[in-house]
């Protein structure tokens, strides 16, 4: 069974946690990733910092800039990924970021590095299906999942193109907007997840604006996964050296709330 398949077992909603690699420093990231796993994260998303994170809200923008100011290089991100894979052989690891750092040395180079580092999937914010040749074929050739985003603007006519070539899971961006700000209404999330699940067999995870255990629990009732990012980034930004402990406790509160939500509905 692939790591994704293990993480998205039926009857249970997976917790997908995002942090920006190298924030606040490359040396600090491994302990924060370990804290995500200890807290109960089922999938870890490692953000590759970029100077121009156009789809991100203020929290993740600042995380990107802190990381770059600390001197984080692409090589550091792959070193962090390699270390994570050695410590956590069974937890799916996803790299998330923007097209330019992923493709600047060639998509084949990037895909090969992902394989070497034990990365399971890649989310590239600014490569829509229309530009798939830029990255998709290289990843698929290496057996790396290309995880696409579906959004409230992805209509029924467009959805097949988004799903074509997608694997691992489908990331539903629940609001038209940037990361970390407003949250969508639960009813609209339920409708969207039902629509997506009717169109695909791969798991559907919901993210953007999920900040509290209560929100995560509500989404866990309907979706195969819940993605939390900015709320964790805020803890990293505020807590400094104490961040791993606080992150672990917060993630645990998310996981616990999600488990209880499923028990209640079961």
């Amino acid at each position: 069974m692939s790591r994704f398949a293990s993480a998205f077992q039926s009857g249970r909603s997976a917790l997908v946690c995002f942090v920006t690699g190298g924030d606040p420093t490359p040396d600090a990231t491994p302990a924060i990733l370990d804290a995500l796993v200890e807290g109960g994260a089922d999938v870890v998303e490692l953000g590759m910092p970029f100077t121009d994170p156009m789809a991100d809200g203020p929290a993740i923008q600042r995380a990107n800039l802190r990381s770059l100011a600390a001197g984080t290089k692409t090589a550091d991100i792959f070193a962090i990924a390699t270390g994570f894979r050695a410590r956590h052989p069974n937890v799916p690891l996803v790299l998330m970021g923007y097209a330019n750092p992923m493709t600047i040395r060639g998509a084949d180079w990037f895909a090969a590095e992902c394989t070497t580092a034990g990365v399971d999937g890649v989310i590239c914010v600014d490569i829509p299906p229309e530009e798939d040749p830029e990255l998709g074929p290289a990843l698929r050739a290496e057996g790396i999942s290309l995880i696409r985003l579906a959004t409230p603007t992805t209509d029924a006519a467009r959805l097949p193109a988004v799903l074509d070539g997608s694997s691992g899971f489908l990331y539903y961006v629940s609001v038209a907007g940037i990361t970390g700000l407003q949250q969508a209404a639960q009813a609209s999330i339920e409708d969207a997840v039902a629509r997506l699940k009717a169109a695909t067999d791969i798991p559907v995870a919901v993210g953007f604006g999920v900040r509290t255990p209560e929100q995560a629990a509500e989404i866990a009732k309907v979706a195969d996964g819940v993605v939390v990012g900015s709320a964790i980034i805020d803890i990293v930004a505020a807590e400094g050296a104490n961040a791993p402990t606080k992150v672990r406790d917060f993630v645990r509160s998310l996981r616990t709330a999600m488990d209880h939500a499923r028990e209640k509905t079961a």
Partner: protein
Amino acid sequence: MTLINSLRTQPDDRGHFGQFGGRYVAETLMPLVLDLETEYRKAKADPAFHAEFDDLLEHYVGRPSPLYFAPRLTEELGGAQIWFKRDELNHTGAHKINNCIGQILLAIRMGKTRIIAETGAGQHGVATATVCARFGLPCIVYMGATDVARQAPNVFRMKLLGAEVVPVTSGAATLKDAMNEALRDWVANVDDTFYIIGTAAGPHPYPELVRDFQSVIGKEARAQMLSRVGRLPDVLVASIGGGSNSIGLFHPFLDDPSVKMLGVEAAGHGLDKEHAASLAGGRPGILHGNKTYLLQDEDGQITEGHSISAGLDYPGIGPEHSWLKEIGRVDYTSVTDTEALEGFQLLCRTEGIIPALEPAHAIAAVRKLAPTMDKDQIILVNLCGRGDKDIFSVAEHLRVSL
């Protein structure tokens, strides 16, 4: 007549100019970009759209702009005849308004009720605020906080015109960051908002439609040249930041093999120091929705551009220029801040025209080029903006206190 080998049929149906261009946007924006393309195809085929565009250009913008022979500059440089396309005489003082007229007409066709824009020096912001006032639409202009501070007169102009100017503090707080913030606004306001991009860059179809709207410059110039001199110019020269004034001049001449073209990038403090010459000092990458030459490091992190001209200090360039460079149809060069300042003063002194610092770069290139050419040859320069906005920064660089 269909020209099989025409250079004027780009981009392809996926928005690519060779390997450049494309639609590298977040999924949320992709349906909007596709809608815009569909609507632009309809508008392009609609005579009523062209009639309204042409009417506004004539009676509101003041087109056609004059074609002017510069006798004293020609004499001073002692070579080719120098002619100017006087787009600095447009309403709002630059070529930017041509594009804004076209895009706001598209926005109205699409039923959009809110306009956003990015601006660096403020010229595009002023032009956007102008057309929004003209058509009664709310206007939000994103502008780097650094630029807000150094371009105070344009900020005031935009406010007078009813626009809301939002200072952007992320990154270096300049044009690149303003564009990021405008994209963030667009992605959060997908139903009612039209994004008027100021240069021939961004996701397809923006590079194409901005070029088409700005091509009025080259179409007029070509006809004016033929009517006044009876032949085409030998060389076209234009400055390049994102590249909208230059592509507007060049594009109608691309299939005229006798016409050479020279794009002039900003070499800032020098190509070995801080500069904004994406073609000379960058390499292909992906930013702001398109693949094009970018200033970046080995990891693909975007580096900051520098130029004395706030209108040129963008770390990228429109994708059609990247393609024209790669196929060798257009030559590209660069001039430094110091050379641009000299060009600025040269035009003031010889022709009684105060140019913007952007076309001052083109004049600096002409200063080197003209003496190498024969006196019966013709150089046509796009004078794309006037210098009123720049007199304070020029004074500072010349160490004059006002």
